[in-house]
């Protein structure tokens, strides 16, 4: 009997209680996750809510009642705010385009070709990311002043392109590093010349990396304050206007614009994820026959 007991009793054996630590872990983890999510999103919720605040006076710090007034009169109360937003969008779009093109080409060169100075360049490209913004801004100002260049939208754009290139290179390089060169060889083997190979194979495959880099660059540009402050001269961008207004009271229109930018970004991200999903799922894999 004793010999068979081990195998027979198996099905009816009582479930072993989970260790205490594991049970605590199961309870704590969701709570912890929830707290982190609240921590991340509370400021955004506050921003959105105070866009509906029916304020008396200049300050938008305490809840005084609900209104849609700021949404309805978004662009017709503060012309200077409109201009600053327009400036920020202009700088953001131009610097993103230029930095993405240059950064992608540099990223390609750094991963593809052996050339003199490649290793130092690989490290130097991190410098604008690693250098404190305040130092960059101050030295840019000194540079423009000593070169006798007047500060305006152009100098802001030049500065933004400068720091954006590094971020684009780093992002795109990571994507290209995982790229299988045999795919390009295969394209050439099938009759595609270098340009066709780039157009039909290389570019479509590294495009997600380029898009991610461009989104990052735009996000960095649109809310940059420190470097812009040094290179703006009399020009006012959205962050500069908000900073200036904070001393006399930030109007709720700023909250509304912030909320809009947030939702545009959110819609973009959701669209992107949905598109990626659609690429991945289709007919399920079958076994070989």
């Amino acid at each position, binding site marked *: 009997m004793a010999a068979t007991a081990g195998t027979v009793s198996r099905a009816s054996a009582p479930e072993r209680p989970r260790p205490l630590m594991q049970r605590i872990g199961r309870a704590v983890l969701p709570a912890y996750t929830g707290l982190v999510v609240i921590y991340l999103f509370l400021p955004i919720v506050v921003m959105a809510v105070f866009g509906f605040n029916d304020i008396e006076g200049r300050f938008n710090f305490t809840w005084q009642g609900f209104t849609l007034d700021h949404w309805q009169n978004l662009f017709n109360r503060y012309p200077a705010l409109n201009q600053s937003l327009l400036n920020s969008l202009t700088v953001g779009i131009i610097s993103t385009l230029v930095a993405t093109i240059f950064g992608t080409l540099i990223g390609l060169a750094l991963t593809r070709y052996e050339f003199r100075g490649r290793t130092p360049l690989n490290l130097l490209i991190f410098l604008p990311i690693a250098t404190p913004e305040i130092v960059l801004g101050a030295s840019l100002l000194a540079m423009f002043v000593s070169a006798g260049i007047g500060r305006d939208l152009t100098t802001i754009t030049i500065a933004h392109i400068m720091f954006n290139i590094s971020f684009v290179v780093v992002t795109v390089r990571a994507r290209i590093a995982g790229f299988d060169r045999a795919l390009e060889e295969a394209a050439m*083997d099938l*009759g595609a010349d270098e340009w066709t190979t780039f157009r039909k194979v290389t570019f*479509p495959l590294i495009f997600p990396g380029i898009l991610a880099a461009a989104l990052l660059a735009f996000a960095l540009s649109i809310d940059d304050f420190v470097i812009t402050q040094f290179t703006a001269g009399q020009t006012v961008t959205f962050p500069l206007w908000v900073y200036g207004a904070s001393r006399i009271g930030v109007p709720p229109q700023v909250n509304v614009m912030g909320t809009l930018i947030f939702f545009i970004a959110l819609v973009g991200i959701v669209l992107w994820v949905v598109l990626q999903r659609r690429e991945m799922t289709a007919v399920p894999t079958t076994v070989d026959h």
Partner: protein
Amino acid sequence: MPEADVRLDRVTKRFGDFTAVDDLSLTMERGEFFALLGPSGCGKTTTLRMIGGFEEVTAGTVYLGGADVTELPPFKRNVNTVFQNYALFPHLDVYENIAFGLRRRRVPEGEVRAQVKFMLKLVDLPGYEKRRPNQLSGGQQQRVALARALINSPQVLLLDEPLGALDLKLRKQMQVELKRIQSEIGITFIFVTHDQEEAMTMSDRIAVMREGRIEQLGRPEELYERPASSFVAGFLGVSNLLDGEVVGRHGELVDVQLGDGTLVRAPAAASNGDTHVRVGVRPEKLRVTSSHTEAPRSVEDTNALEGTVLDASYIGVSTQYIVQTADGHKLTVYAQNLETSGASEALADGQTVQLTWRPQHTFVIARTDRDVDATPQYEEGQVPS
């Protein structure tokens, strides 16, 4: 004289100080299934890549159907390649992958559709047009890669370790499939492999490469039955090699005296007039018998060696013996289990036995300082850098 399809004329490829391919001359005939076989780093893949146009040639000339293509980029050569890991375009579906070559030549859509359909049928994947490469199994990807190359009706198809990423069963199946497709379309296939069995099964001719040179070139049975060097003997299958001196000649046969004084006979043609030689015999050609049951036969028609069984392993179709000769050589013997029916009937360890084989089954290799025992290496045969 069959027409030459690909000809390499004294081709050398160096990567820095490393010579991957060393003054290689080689002719592949039209319609033949040709294998470049060798261990990792022997230059076989580099050779293939030079034919495809993916490596610049350091010296020498590459001819394709008589025309010098040495300087031409891959997209101007009428060859197509099945890459080692297939290199299917992950962002295109099966249809567009296969149609890629036709699109480059601006073939009208109707014809593209018909040809892709034909190709999918040829590689036995009809109905897979809309799949993405990542939705296919390894074997299916392999077939798509094949279709994508063949649709361009290349003069020569290059295959770089085409079956390396497949499991054993699928590999066997694809070997047969590849041979069928090759005979169906009748173009030259040049394929690179480190797997001697694969090369033997599929090829019309095999070039065994070593250190950037061709060690031996011939039909599979020539390489197996008459290897020209210890390297080839060891790389293609198992062989037993014994050092000896040629001491006499009897018509078609030569007498070779082994280290322990035993005389064995080998075909004279195989000895090439060398005196310091190695004689070899394949394990399945040896007959092992218990010394008591049979008296030694005359040396005239049978070679014989005495030995002791070190190890007997029953492996189903055959029993494998390791037999040690009087002077310490260890020989491998595969005895077909024709009449025996179990391990119990095998000869026991420590038993004295006699090994006999026919002189015609002996091969002779000149002893040189390049003699190294080759064991097949089963790593990926990549380009050394």
